[in-house]
């Protein structure tokens, strides 16, 4: 088990990306401290201090860790007051996180055929770090990223560093038109699918994987109170009963889930 840390972080960059996504780059306030190791698929819990309506921390996936520069990246979508307050953070503001939390994606021993990393909307977030980890193992991941429209596409240049990038947009304004599950990439031999995104998308991907006997892991986003397995609020019904998404997940093999697909 990786030790969980409560860390004070400083904002070193906060960029509005397309539409309502922003990329928050953080470093430890104590610059002599290096970011502890975290695995792909893990997340952090952020305390949002300046939003009166935000009482609990907010769980956000690790988008990327740049260990050389001691940077933690978070890709965030503006949803409600909490994420809006985070979007307004300025360089040198500080915030408190719990890091890292949750389990991680299961990495294959060896690459045999395609490893497809399917992200939809802000669900592309954990795929970047996962892609990097796979890349560093010598694998070539295929990113299959779905967005509403070309104006939503984010972090393209970053994804390209670690694998092949395939895009779908719902309106066809970039890449293939339609949903990720319609993409031509899925006709090729696939060893494993990793996916994160809106639940209907993940269910469609899981269904596809199941039908084609492809190993598949999904990253769930059940609402959380604590984020580290003590409140039992975030449970998902699995083949083993209720388990905590925050500590037994957020990554689940679809075989363990009871989704009706």
């Amino acid at each position, binding site marked *: 088990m990786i*030790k*969980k840390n409560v860390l004070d972080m400083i904002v070193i960059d906060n960029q509005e990306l397309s539409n309502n996504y922003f990329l928050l780059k953080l470093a430890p306030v104590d610059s002599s401290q290096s970011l502890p190791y975290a695995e792909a698929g893990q997340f952090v819990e952020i305390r949002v201090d300046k939003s009166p309506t935000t*009482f*609990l921390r907010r769980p956000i996936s690790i988008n990327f860790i740049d260990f050389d520069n001691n940077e933690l990246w978070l890709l965030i979508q503006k949803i409600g007051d909490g994420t809006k307050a985070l979007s307004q953070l300025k360089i040198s503001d500080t915030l408190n996180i719990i890091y890292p939390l949750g389990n991680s994606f299961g990495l294959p021993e060896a690459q045999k055929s395609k490893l497809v990393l399917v992200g939809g909307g802000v669900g592309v977030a954990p795929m970047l770090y996962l892609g990097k980890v796979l890349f560093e193992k010598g694998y070539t991941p295929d990113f299959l990223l779905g967005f509403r429209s070309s104006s939503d596409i984010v972090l393209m240049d970053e994804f390209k560093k670690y694998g092949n990038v395939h895009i779908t947009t719902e309106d066809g304004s970039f890449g293939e038109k339609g949903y990720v599950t319609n993409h031509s990439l899925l006709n090729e031999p696939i060893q494993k699918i990793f996916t994160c995104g809106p639940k209907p998308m993940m269910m469609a991907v899981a269904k596809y994987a199941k039908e084609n006997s492809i190993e598949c892991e999904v990253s769930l986003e059940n*609402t959380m109170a604590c984020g580290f397995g*003590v*409140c039992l609020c*975030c449970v998902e019904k699995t083949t083993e009963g*209720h388990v905590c998404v925050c500590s037994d997940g957020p990554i689940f093999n679809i075989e363990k889930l009871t989704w009706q697909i």
Partner: protein
Amino acid sequence: MADLRVEINKLKLDNPVLTASGTFGYGHEFSDYIDLNRLGGYLVKGTTLHHREGNPYPRMAETPSGMLNAVGLQNKGVDYFIENIYPICSQYSSKAIVNVSGSCIDDYVACTEKIAALDKIEAIELNISCPNVKQGGMAFGTCPKSAEDVVAAVRKVYPKTLIVKLSPNVTDITEIARAAEAAGADSVSLINTLLGMAVNAETRKPILSTVTGGLSGAAVKPIALRMVWQTYKSVKIPVIGLGGIMNATDAIEFLLAGATAIQIGTANFIDPQITVKVVDGINEYLDRQGCKSVNEIIGGLIL
């Protein structure tokens, strides 16, 4: 450095800071964050005779300065606790207290008997106030007679320190506290959660699978503080105060209102290190106020 020791009947605590059941897991989950031995004690999660799956997801809704939960006592049952958790608890010097729940008196008694056999568990907290289960739970805690019955039955089989946890969803909490006292409780802890509800206006649906759930967190503090004060004045046994304690100042307010010890619940989710900060904060306060012992401020509200 003041003397922080307090006593809840036979139970001797190094300091008055405990954790609230259901918000602290089995304790060891916090070992990455804090030194568990710095706490007076910790309440382990609601334990029942048999394994319980709890309520369906969603079980949580954030509310202004608080949250609703509808966990519904999910736990693997008392035998699981004894086999798998008790050995871990025993490694800490800090006192583990088991929160015992049930849906009928026999279950409470049977569960308690098993816990009574555990050497290192010196106290139980009888949860007669859970708003999230269909049978039992809060029903026991909202009427003096049924509270008395369940406490008396458990008292018979439990010689160690018996704490009874009260529901705030009542017209007069002191009436229930007195019933618990009369039935032999060594202490009462209050408050459990307030029954609340959350709705998603856009979908027109309740947010919780169970429609209603239990409100906790900062929002409830004024109500909890009032109930602790009222109860402190109306029973002789020590009162344990909780509900919305987010920092040392809040904890001190409960001590002044008459709590001999306090529990920290929801605040653990926001700051998993809050418990030790509260221990330190109480210490600093006592030094600043020139008190030698925390007992000097318990019930020390100046009217």
